[in-house]
């Protein structure tokens, strides 16, 4: 997306200044944008989560495929964050934290209602199955 914008911007700049370099850069940015579009699509396709009976599965990544298993009983707290861009599209990111710093369970790009529902159901399940350290 930024590459696309940069491409258009550079093309306009090239039009105005008539420099060849700007055109070249614009073309490069457009090609890059097109390629990254595909990657974004694939990455989007890799995101996923599944609520199982006793644990949550979170999957993400194309190059480095990650699959995390987080038992509900081990969750310490749940974050729901929404950056400015996410807010503009009505999205939110849910992140789970356990006592282990390395736990990396992040579910990006959820609809806001879905994020709220997930948060509440996870909190409930976590409370029901909580275990000590």
């Amino acid at each position: 997306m930024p590459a696309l914008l940069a491409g258009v911007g550079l093309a306009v700049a090239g039009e105005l200044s008539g420099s060849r370099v700007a055109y070249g850069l614009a073309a490069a940015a457009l090609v890059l944008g097109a390629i990254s579009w595909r990657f974004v699509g694939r990455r989007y396709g890799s995101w996923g989560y599944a609520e199982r009976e006793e644990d949550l599965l979170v999957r993400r990544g194309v190059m480095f495929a990650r699959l995390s298993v987080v038992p509900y009983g081990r969750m310490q707290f749940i974050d729901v964050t929404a950056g400015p861009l996410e807010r503009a599209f009505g999205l939110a990111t849910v992140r789970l934290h356990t006592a282990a710093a390395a736990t990396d369970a992040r579910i990006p790009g959820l609809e806001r209602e879905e994020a709220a529902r997930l948060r509440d159901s996870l909190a409930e399940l976590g409370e029901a199955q909580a275990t000590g350290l």
Partner: protein
Amino acid sequence: MSTGTPEGWQRLHPLSPVVRGGRATIAIFILLIPIALGTDRFSNATPQLVITGVLVLGGLVSWLVTRWRIEDDDLRIETGLLRRQSLRFPLAQVQAIDVVRPGLARVFRVAELRLRMAGASGATARLAYVAEHEVEPLRSQLLALARGARHDEADLEPTGEPERPAAEEHVVATVQTGKLVASIVLENWWLVVILAGLLAGFAASPHTVSRALRGVGFVWVLSMATFIWRRFNQQYRLTVAEGPDGLHLRGGLVALTAEVIRPGRVQAVRLVEPFLWRPLGWCRVEVDVAGRQRRKGEGEAQRGQLRTLVPVASRALGVELIDRLVPDRPRELSPPPRRVFWKSPLRYRALSWGRTETCVATTSGRLRRVVSWVPLEKVQSLRHVQGPLQRRLRLASVHVDTAGRAVHATLRDRDAAEAASALAELTDLARAARRRPALT
């Protein structure tokens, strides 16, 4: 502590600010020496006297406003004059209670009690300082309370005569000084080489070397020296003993520490064999207890470092200790498939893993061999990761995350199918292990 106030509040030892000041106290004394000796005229000494006065007053006030007491199952500490803080530490969450005696504290016969708490934000409750003869009873009382609070034993009387664990413990291992020195030198042999090189250079052309040292080199040498000193100071004559309430560690050269590691609070165990130790058959046993990498109120030395159980021991002794900590550990570890050679040519011989119903073990490190054991009931989450190169070779890794600080057991570079089944298996086993009633 000796000064009781109404409602059971207690104060710390009156000398606490002096000891807490540490080096500053010594500096003040040095400042005062010329005045006391009368070599300085009084008018010249006014600034010194004012500074000293302010510091003494500050110390006195901080002592006056700090008080603590045991409330039911909590330890309450109140402190601060302007910014009043009331800290509550639930004793049920105590991981370990350490007794620390820095050099100055030993001079004044006081000691610090440190309560390590669990939880991600785990703070450390510090009672600094308490008179030496009151430390042991207080610690036993707190430990008994911590145990009682966990088991909800109503019949446990908190004020009763606490048991003395010191009487019934038996010593498992003591570190010999010579061995400790040798082990530190052998583990940090490159440091020794550099230092020797520096000395040789100094002999050859003092000018260049000293110029280099004045810059970054000096800071580096100093930090390395403190690192080694700290380790030596901590691990000097370290004794491991087995008591009814866990493993007792005692030792130290200038600063004496004594701590208890309660069974069931150990998140992971690690056996480390640095390269040059291996011909000698030495090893080090480290345990990981709950807590994040960096915690407030902890000394620099403990940051990101594991609790060393035995700094250096023979392999047989190390294995014996590990048998105590993880009784049901896997005996046979399986190596990864041969094609891992293409991904990690140096490491692949050292990689392996194994599991039993309650424990997972992994090994790594070609030169510095590390074996890690994680009890499955301590597993926080599991991660299955596959990088681009691993995908090419049909490999994958499974990470076992614990609440510890540094041990991350990783089933590195396993066959993809094996990793997937291991993930499912470990998930089920960890669930079963959590369900099982805790051992303590």
